[in-house]
């Protein structure tokens, strides 16, 4: 049988055959997913935990990194991959802290993809990085659809954006492993942002992700964030060791 073309005719019998419908059932993101798997293999072999930060433009991704990288650096060797449409500005802010950083400028593309990340990986020494933060392009839509090979997704929602964003951007929020409510110091000025309402909208997406409210400016909630990152790193190291053990016996 000709399995490829679905014409139902045995192979090798030439017959007038004008059109054919070929069944494929292929994921359109397959190419990206294959590359993401390749990236994940790099991360596994170097023992690097990779956290992908996503949010709308200006929700405070870089500010959160700036406020906590130095503290994290005391226990873990950190590095940052910065994704932006244009400019090196975010990379410069991280570099000012003496943290290794690579800037990816995507030009007209509104999200990072596995290929862009892969290219950047080969310009850093992963073996010397315990935790790699990827700051995705500020955008609540596309970045959610492109697997980069990261282990966990962190979505930031600043209080000035409104507490209904999880309901309006379900594709982004439903798969978040952590929701960070940022710019908590501005909460009194905004007035109508309710953390419990943001949480309800998130739970409606069948998400059980933890929520951490913080302010990179005032420092409120940063300890909880740091504890979460430490815990993920500890967990990934245990998982990694187990995977090595299992691989050794199997």
């Amino acid at each position, binding site marked *: 049988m000709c399995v490829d073309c679905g014409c139902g005719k045995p192979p090798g019998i030439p017959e007038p055959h004008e059109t054919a419908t070929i069944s494929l*059932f292929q994921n359109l993101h397959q190419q990206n997913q294959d590359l993401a798997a390749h990236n994940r293999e790099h991360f596994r072999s170097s023992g690097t935990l990779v956290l992908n930060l996503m949010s709308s433009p200006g929700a405070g991704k870089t500010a959160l990194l700036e406020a906590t990288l130095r503290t994290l650096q005391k226990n873990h060797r950190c590095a940052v991959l910065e994704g932006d449409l244009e400019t090196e500005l975010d990379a410069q802010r991280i570099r000012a802290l003496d943290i290794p950083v690579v800037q990816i400028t995507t030009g007209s593309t509104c999200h990072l993809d596995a290929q862009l990340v892969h290219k950047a990986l080969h310009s850093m020494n992963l073996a010397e990085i315990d935790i790699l933060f990827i700051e995705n392009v500020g955008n609540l839509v596309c970045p959610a659809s492109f697997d980069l090979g990261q282990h966990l997704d962190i979505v930031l929602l600043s209080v000035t954006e409104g507490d209904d964003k999880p309901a309006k951007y379900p594709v982004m929020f439903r798969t978040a492993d952590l929701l960070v409510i940022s710019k908590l110091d501005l909460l009194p000025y905004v007035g109508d942002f309710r953390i419990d309402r943001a949480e309800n909208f998130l739970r409606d997406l069948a998400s059980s992700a933890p929520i951490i409210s913080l302010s990179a400016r005032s420092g409120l909630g940063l300890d909880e964030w740091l504890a979460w990152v430490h815990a993920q790193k500890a967990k990934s190291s245990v998982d990694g060791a187990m995977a090595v053990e299992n691989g050794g016996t199997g």
Partner: protein
Amino acid sequence: MHELSLCRSLLHQTLEVAARHRAVAVTALRLQIGPLSGVEPELLKTAFPLAAAGTIAESAVLNLTATCIEVYCKSCNTRCQATPSRLCCATCGSCSTQLVSGDELMLESVELTLDQPSAIQCP
């Protein structure tokens, strides 16, 4: 919007199949798109001719099927339909559900015009 870059991978996959079958034209593509795929079907339809211009797929018709969102409820063991912003169980109200369908972005089939009868290659 990344519909144009998505169209490029759609085109890439399509032309690969077409080449394997030595097709002279691609006449139609059938896709399944879920409301949680992050893709706007209308934008995809608009972007495809731009991506496909000058290729044998340039006049292909895009047939898009929108799939439904369906969740499986772990609390009451049922499957039911849901909406993008509320993925909880319609029967018991529990939000410990799993997405069964609704996020697909799938090239289901392509329709080709073949050159010669003998052009069909079966491995």
